[in-house]
């Protein structure tokens, strides 16, 4: 009977494709939007992820994220270095600046100053050039988002910039995770950064700390906070802070939430409508089957099989579509490093199952209600 159910469904290509399309569309919308949402949120933590070697970030008590930081006096560095359990501690500066390009365009950039001696604070990998270029005067390393944004046509290597009225030369390209706002980032040595960023007395944004063996990051955090009065966060906590900041301060959870809800509703609408049309067209046949001697239980299984087939194909197409989308746009810096967390296909699977259960149930009600006696009318 399942075979008959499947043939009933596929024998009506229009409705079959309508159903598959509805499910595929919902899956695509839900999966794709959730993927973008999660990846965008994670961008809030990109500043942390780009500095892979720091176990603990130390900052002024009012600082909140890598981008929302209040500068500390440079003495903070020594205070942190004095805390037992601190293997190493380096200064880290993050500031906003304006750049004038050769063509006269103005671009807001983030300047990140990394420790002169160790270069801790740079992204792990370079796309072009080596980190050693920073030892040359006025050197900056641009991130790949900056490259595509400011120099879409030619290599930026050797380009001169006017950075807050100071001369800067691009000598390398870093492979970095873009920030939430896809701001262009220029990496330079800490001492250089102090020149680029106009001087107030306090300019130390963070102290990056590596922990000694034998204690956890959390223990070190507690110790630093107790001994210095500064705020300290583990790498994971600080990444989480960045994500939370976006959730709390932007409308994107709501926006994406609405789109995902729309995907669900549109799915219910398309699939529900098509499913009931399909059932209505076949109500006589279902009635005949019931009269002949097919139980309601078997009818349920038949409709479930129809829903299952539609769901499987539609869901597969929807997920494939999302993968294709991510793949197609992977070269675009906006979507750089986007991936589909395994939870998301699971969520859309649940959504699809809900859609089909709901619409299948609605459609099924009519069949189950049909009196077998109606076949003689």
């Amino acid at each position, binding site marked *: 009977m399942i075979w008959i159910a499947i043939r009933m469904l596929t024998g009506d290509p229009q409705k079959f494709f309508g159903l598959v399309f509805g499910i595929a569309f919902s899956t695509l919308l839900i999966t794709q939007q959730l993927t973008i949402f999660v990846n965008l949120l994670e961008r809030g933590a990109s500043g942390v992820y780009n500095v892979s070697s720091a176990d603990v970030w130390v900052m002024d008590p009012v600082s909140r994220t890598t981008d929302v930081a209040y500068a500390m006096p440079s003495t903070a560095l020594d205070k942190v270095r004095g805390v037992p359990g601190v293997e190493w501690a380096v200064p880290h500066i993050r500031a906003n600046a304006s750049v004038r390009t050769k063509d006269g365009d103005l671009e807001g950039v983030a300047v990140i100053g990394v420790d002169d001696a160790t270069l801790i604070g740079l992204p792990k990998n370079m796309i072009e050039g080596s980190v050693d270029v920073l030892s040359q005067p006025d050197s900056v390393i641009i991130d790949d988002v900056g490259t595509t944004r400011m120099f879409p046509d030619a290599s930026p290597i050797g380009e001169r910039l006017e950075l807050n009225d100071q001369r800067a030369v691009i000598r390398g390209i870093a492979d970095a995770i873009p920030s939430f706002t896809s701001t262009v980032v220029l990496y330079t040595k800490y001492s250089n950064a102090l020149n680029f960023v106009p001087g107030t007395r306090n300019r130390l944004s963070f102290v990056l700390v590596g922990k000694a063996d034998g204690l956890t990051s959390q223990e070190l955090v507690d110790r630093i906070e107790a001994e210095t009065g500064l705020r300290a966060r583990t790498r994971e906590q600080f990444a989480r802070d960045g994500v939370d900041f976006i959730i709390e301060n932007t409308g994107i959870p709501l926006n994406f939430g609405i789109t995902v809800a729309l995907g669900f509703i549109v799915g219910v609408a398309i699939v529900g409508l098509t499913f009931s049309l399909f059932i209505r067209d076949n109500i006589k*046949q279902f*009635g005949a089957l019931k009269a002949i*001697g097919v139980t309601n*239980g078997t009818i349920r299984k038949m409709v479930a099989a129809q829903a299952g087939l539609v769901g499987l194909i539609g869901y597969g197409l929807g997920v494939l579509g999302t993968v294709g989308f991510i793949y197609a746009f992977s070269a675009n810096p906006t979507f750089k490093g986007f991936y589909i967390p395994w939870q998301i296909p699971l969520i859309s699977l649940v959504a699809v199952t809900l859609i089909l259960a709901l619409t299948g149930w609605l459609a099924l009600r009519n069949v189950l209600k049909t009196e077998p006696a109606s076949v003689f009318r």
Partner: protein
Amino acid sequence: MSGPAISTRGVTRDFKAGQQTITVLHGIDLDVKAGELTFLVGESGSGKTTLISIMCGILWPTLGEVEVFGTDIYDLSDDDLVEFRLQNIGFIFQQYNLIPSIDAASNAAVPLIAQGMDRHEAREKAAAMLEKLNIGDQAGKLPNQLSGGQQQRVAIARALVHEPRLVVCDEPTAALDAASGRRVMDLLREVAVAEDRACIIVTHDNRIFDMADRILVLEDGKVTHDGEHMPEDH
């Protein structure tokens, strides 16, 4: 075979029409024998379809009992009644109600498939039945590729393929011209009437009344005649 194939006792059926209740069948008592072609005739609205629906277990009587080959069918549980129909009753619906997306042989095989027989085996049996009905060469066609008469034969094949003990048929000739109507009745007599099988045909087509072995006349929900021929005044 001893005793009637089907017997109804005091079968009454009410329908609710808005506020009021109309009684369509008034205490029907009748017996149908196996091995005969039994006609149930009467004017439109006299309750023929209602009665045959009750006799074949798809419509509950408001009152009364129906025995089909010794089984009090409305005493069965819902699922047992469904199973009883599947094993014992063949239906020929006026509108055929074939499944459009499966071919003639598969349509004819539906009762066997529903009984759990392997699909291919069922289809082979059904194809043999189509052969018997002289449309063996149409077995692979979809219903919409068949003429109305051929579709009806597929419907007949579906009603007989599982060798039911009771075959019911509502208005098989209503849509046909006189000659075709008689041909279908000949065919039904040939394939459907059997020693241990009851065959009830609902009709108000007076062109075929002479082909019955037995005629039951229903008037306003009562059986007013039971004999081998139509009464003189009809």
